[in-house]
């Protein structure tokens, strides 16, 4: 006998993601899921973003990438609340991991929550976390063919960050080629070209981010 199946494969994860989303909403927390290859520059980009925030916007970080060269200590030294999630070798964060980390924060004191996913371009996009924004970070050092090689994750992005712009020439990075690939798989996500190291381009990104956050809080 053949039985049609209605319930879906990641229902368990998606339900908890919806709970997280609700928790974020209740506390006015605008959460970002940052996905990238290992070493792309996620942590550096998060720190640069935090440095460019106005004083009245309070950030926090969930660090899911153990392989990072910059660890949770660096973030916490800046007085930013940070929780390190140990994924036990897993290749992505999932909604239960995020949920379990939330009690460690004073959520009502947080405006922006940066969730640095495990460095991986293949699977994190299948696992919703309950965030308001999916951010895919790519770097000039990784080459301009990333959207062609990993179209799946670029297609799910709400916004794409191309970082390490300061070394774009060194890697003979063809920005137009990258942008065409991105546009082919995702017609909606804006692209910000930045350098986490020099801070170039971060202001424009922060302005856009805060604008999105205003839209989010206005709708609560």
């Amino acid at each position, binding site marked *: *006998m053949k*039985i049609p199946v209605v319930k879906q*494969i990641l229902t368990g994860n998606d339900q908890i993601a919806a709970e997280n989303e609700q928790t974020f909403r209740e506390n006015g927390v605008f959460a970002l899921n940052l996905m990238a290859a290992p070493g792309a520059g996620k942590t550096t980009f998060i720190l640069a973003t935090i440095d460019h925030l106005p004083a009245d916007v309070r950030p926090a970080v969930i660090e899911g990438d153990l392989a990072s060269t910059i660890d949770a200590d660096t973030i916490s030294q800046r007085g930013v609340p940070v929780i390190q999630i140990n994924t036990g070798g897993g*290749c992505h964060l999932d909604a239960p991991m995020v949920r379990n980390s939330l009690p460690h924060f004073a959520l009502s004191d947080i405006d922006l929550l940066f969730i640095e996913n495990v460095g991986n371009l293949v699977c994190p996009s299948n696992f919703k976390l309950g965030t308001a924004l999916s951010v895919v970070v790519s770097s000039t050092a990784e080459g301009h063919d990333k959207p062609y090689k990993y179209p*799946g994750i670029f297609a799910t992005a709400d916004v794409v960050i191309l970082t390490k712009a300061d070394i774009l020439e060194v890697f003979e990075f063809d920005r137009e080629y990258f942008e065409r690939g991105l546009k082919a798989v995702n017609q909606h996500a804006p692209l910000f070209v930045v350098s986490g190291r020099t801070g170039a381009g971060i202001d424009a990104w922060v302005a856009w981010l805060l604008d999105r956050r205003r839209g989010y809080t206005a709708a609560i």
Partner: protein
Amino acid sequence: MHELPVTQGILTVALETAEQYGGYRITAINLVIGDMTSIVDDSVQFYFDALSQGTAAEGAKLHFRREAAAAKCLECGHEYPVTPPLNPFCPQCDSAFLQISGGKEFFIESIEVDDENTGG
């Protein structure tokens, strides 16, 4: 690697469904997986064989229906199926202006159960 939790999800949903329909043993699971999801059939089958041991789905065969993504050339209008890595140029007119959609399917379409024998 991400196939492990995905496969756990497949097994859980399949077992729950079989349970609801009278607790029959599962003989097959029919999956639909888009090429943009980067889920590898062999890995899913591998994890499934391990995870399903001792359950009502032990020995079940996984059938994969792969769905390609669709490319459309914005210059000549040519439409054709694609799988990653994407070719950056239209095979018909060499244009680099393409639009890719679909290939994101990822679900269990149905399960097949042995309704002659109950148990698990």
